[in-house]
């Protein structure tokens, strides 16, 4: 169960991510699904990745955007539940970071609740053309895994 006190660990063996122009793009390497987190979601992702609890992140983002941390916290719990459901995060596996969270500079930008956008087109492409289910690679082939892909 995700609460405001939960810390998270990235499923770093199975995902790759990068923030480009204020948008964090996450790719699930196992199934080919892409995700986008723009704006507040991108900022939240970076803080989640650093091992902060949702309550800590809510406090920081609340200050930055000048809104109630309780509002942000509720949004973050919803976001985190999605991220866990999509197998991008593991809950309660984050080690946490010592020390104070660095202050985020206040901004004039309007707060918008973080929204995870999923792009499943490439997953469909993987599934359809070519069809990958059932492929098992032979031992000795220099692959990352012998498990089925797709």
């Amino acid at each position, binding site marked *: 169960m995700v609460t405001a006190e939960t810390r998270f660990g990235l499923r770093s063996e199975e995902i790759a991510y990068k923030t480009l122009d204020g948008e964090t793009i996450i790719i699930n390497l*196992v199934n080919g699904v892409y995700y986008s987190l723009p704006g507040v979601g991108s900022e939240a992702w970076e803080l989640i990745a650093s091992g902060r609890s949702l309550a800590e992140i809510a406090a920081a983002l609340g200050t930055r955007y000048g809104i109630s941390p309780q509002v942000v916290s509720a949004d973050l719990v919803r976001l985190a539940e999605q991220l866990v459901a999509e197998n991008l995060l593991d809950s309660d596996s984050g080690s946490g970071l010592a020390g104070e969270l660095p202050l985020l500079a206040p901004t004039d930008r309007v707060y918008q609740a973080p929204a995870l956008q999923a792009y499943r087109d490439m997953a469909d492409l993987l599934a359809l053309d070519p069809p990958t289910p059932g492929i098992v690679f032979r031992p000795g082939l220099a692959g990352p895994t012998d498990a089925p892909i797709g």
Partner: protein
Amino acid sequence: MDIPLFERLQIESQSNCNRACWFCPRTYDRSGKYLDPAGKSVLRQMPTEKILSLLDEAQGLGFSGMVGFHHYSEPLLDPRNITLAREAIRRGMAPYLHTNGDVLRRSDALCDEVRQVYALIVVGLYDYRSNDELREEQEFWRGRLAGARLEFSPIGLADGRTTESIGVPRALVPPDRRMTLPDLTFRNAPCHRPLIRMLVQYDGTVCLCCEDTTGAFDLGNVHRQTLGEVWYSERHTGIIHDLVAGRRDRYGLCRSCPMSPTGPPPKGERVSFAPRTFHPLEGQGERAW
């Protein structure tokens, strides 16, 4: 010989397509493979005897998977298409059709034939402007090809980046804001796609994968080599090993390829990505490495 036999075989029976879609690498080809330097369609076909001998070869290799007669061409522009599909069935294979549907719209009789012959029909849907229109098109084809195992090409609006999205990024297509996915290239990202299909173009050139429109990897030609000789060649297996191990950097086309990773990176490596930079000549009409 340490790679498995291909799961699918594509033998492109002819070179033409009636469309020029903005998201298709064919549209930007000027190598003379599909379009000549003036942008005019090349009209050629593989001799029937050669196609049949390739099917025989595949059967001899123990292949019993799916066979299509396209690469970057429309297979139903070839009047031999149904006959070729029947020949694949006679050899214990399952023919599959990937079509833009234009010919099928005009011919009830051909619809009946493809329904009877093809184990799988994939229809490309390229003309819709909304999700409602997309659903209408899908319903149209479900009715027109009732009883067939039917799939649609993987383009969509519901999860698209813009309301006009209608194509995934491709290595030899210029970046375009209408792409439905972030347009990226990947480092250390495994790619297993070349293991799945063996692709033979209408002129006998063997291609590595769906991004290879011109045979840029110099794998061979079935007019000079057998399917088995090419598939199990040192060059082909070496490329497969490299790509499964995430070494996209070794090949020009792969360096600029936006197709997503097909699995986690090798141990000790991390997949990273960056926005794609388009090099129109890289891997097209040149060697891919």
